[in-house]
């Protein structure tokens, strides 16, 4: 049976056939474009969803996402539109608890499998990061809020990492690697944003100290001790992200090695999927980038990063032809990470009110801009200790009732109020320049 299976596996479309069919499909789609306002009816495949941990509405949730919209509408009707008004809330706002404890819980309850869950946790990590950055630029990020946000951020990152490990353990290397690309992009971009914000905050603190020095009385030992213990609120956020991006870069390399352990057919299938996902991501990113540049009337710096991703993908193609599968896999995912960073660049520019710049330094090299002035920050030689801890965390499997493990494609949970530019612009007029290395 195995021999027959192998033989029958060779029944495949040729490249030309595949390309011709793809072209025909695209033509068909152009003639029958998608409706922009979906009716939101779900497919008729029945499946029991093993959810219910987060919110009692699991009783209402059976097969489809339609109930999410209905439930939110019901709550909105009784709450006078509160749930929708809460979407753009920041920590400290009256509606923020509605946003995180109601809206996000409802949305999260409809993630049925590990892939959707990891995408949702990454989205939540991005939201918490944006909230922290927005508050910091307003000068409204205090120690309590920062501690709360950093704890939430760390939780979402840890959950995402656990879910990735779960996907990998189930043999779904491609899904795990896709999730890893997005998480790595988020961590590296956000780390740089917060590093820059911390540097600005440190500079402001130093200026204040200098200004006050002429009028303050000489400090005692107790005063010095208090000053040593003072940690900027933004530092809490930065600590939650520290080394995580580096860890993810190593996870990416690990996945490439794991690919080599698969049999030839599995490896070929995984690489074919990876290549196609990368190509689709390039096409989508190019569209979004061109639209953004058309709106702003200028080519953005992100375009250089996009070009670099395309070059990386071409190099991956060459590696694939040369049967250097591990290298090809890693390069495809590096390209995907870079494309995710371009997306983040565009979203952050719109959402947070921070003017961002992109440079094309390879983020895998140590970046000299990570200049930590705080004496408590760990030396890069301590990364090994962190790696072990992170590896242990990643080994913890989240207890999951979900029985659906077949989907390679999931509808990504969309972000919403993060792109509400008007609200963010009225909140803050101050801007700081941040380098996002790529």
């Amino acid at each position, binding site marked *: 049976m195995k021999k027959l299976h192998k033989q029958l596996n060779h029944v495949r479309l040729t490249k030309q056939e595949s390309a011709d069919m793809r072209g025909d499909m695209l033509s068909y789609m152009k003639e029958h474009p998608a409706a922009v306002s979906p*009716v*939101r009816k779900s497919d008729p*495949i029945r499946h029991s969803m093993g959810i219910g941990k987060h919110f009692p509405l699991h009783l209402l949730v059976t097969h489809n996402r339609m109930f999410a919209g209905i439930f939110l509408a019901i709550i909105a009707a009784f709450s006078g539109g509160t749930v929708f008004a809460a979407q753009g809330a920041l920590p400290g706002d009256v509606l923020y608890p509605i946003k995180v404890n109601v809206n996000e819980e409802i949305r999260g309850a409809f993630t049925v499998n590990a892939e959707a869950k990891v995408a949702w946790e990454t989205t939540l990590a991005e939201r918490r990061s944006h909230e922290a950055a927005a508050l910091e630029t307003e000068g409204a990020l205090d120690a309590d809020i920062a501690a709360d946000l950093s704890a939430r951020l760390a939780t979402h990152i840890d959950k995402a990492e656990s879910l990735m490990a779960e996907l990998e353990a189930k043999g779904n290397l491609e899904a795990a690697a896709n999730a890893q690309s997005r998480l790595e992009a988020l961590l590296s971009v956000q780390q740089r944003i917060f590093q820059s914000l911390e540097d600005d905050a440190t500079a402001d603190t130093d200026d204040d100290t200098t200004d006050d020095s002429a009028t303050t009385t000489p400090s005692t030992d107790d005063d010095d001790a208090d000053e040593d213990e003072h940690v900027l609120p933004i530092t809490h956020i930065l600590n939650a992200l520290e080394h995580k991006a580096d860890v993810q870069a190593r996870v990416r390399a690990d996945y490439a090695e794991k690919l080599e352990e698969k049999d030839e057919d599995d490896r070929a299938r995984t690489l074919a999927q990876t290549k196609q996902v990368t190509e689709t991501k390039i096409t989508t990113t190019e569209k979004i980038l061109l639209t953004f540049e058309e709106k702003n009337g200028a080519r953005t710096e992100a375009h250089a990063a996009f070009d670099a991703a395309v070059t990386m993908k071409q190099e991956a193609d060459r590696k694939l032809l040369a049967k250097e599968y591990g290298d090809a896999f890693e390069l495809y995912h590096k390209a995907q990470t870079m494309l995710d960073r371009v997306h983040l660049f565009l979203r952050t520019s719109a959402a947070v009110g921070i003017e961002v710049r992109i440079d094309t330094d390879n983020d895998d090299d140590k970046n000299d801009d990570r200049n930590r002035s705080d004496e408590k920050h760990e030396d890069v030689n301590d990364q090994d200790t962190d790696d072990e801890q992170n590896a242990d965390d990643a080994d913890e499997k989240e207890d999951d009732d979900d029985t659906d493990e*077949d989907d390679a494609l999931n509808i990504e949970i969309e972000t919403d109020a993060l792109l509400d530019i008007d609200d963010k612009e009225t909140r803050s007029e101050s801007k700081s320049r941040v380098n996002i290395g790529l």
Partner: protein
Amino acid sequence: MAATQEDIEQRFMTLYDTYQDAIFRHCYFRVYHREIAKELAQEAFMKVWDYLQKGNTLEHPKAFLYKIATNTVIDYRRRKKEDSLEQLQDTGFQPAGNERIEDATDSKMDVDALMTVLDTLEDIYCEAFLLRYIEGLKPKEIAVMTGETVNVISVRITRAKRQVQQKMKHIPTV
């Protein structure tokens, strides 16, 4: 928030790129004709697009896609009144130039015989066998796709395999 047109197109094309070959094979091993299999596979994807294009969403895209493909093949067979078992035994199936199985005569005979036998099975057993042993799907995945329980699928696979093995013994070898 409602998905944009670009979002829907992107997700669909990712689904298409991921499963184009798999759906072609799924159709091929039901109709044993390359060009027809390509048309049926394409028709299945168009139906899925039509479903999405009207504003519906997919919670289980892969399962839905396989289901549509299966139904498309069934509709084709009913429309075309498929050839009899004797005709299939005479003509065999037509592998394309890139298939290695035509290089090994014995292997080709085995595959021919297998295809002949599969065509004599009830649809539910043929489907279970193909999905398990040709597509390499796990019983759990097949259960989601068909809406049956894992136990039912496991029983069908076992029975299908037993039937195939028994019938293969009776096919004369040359």
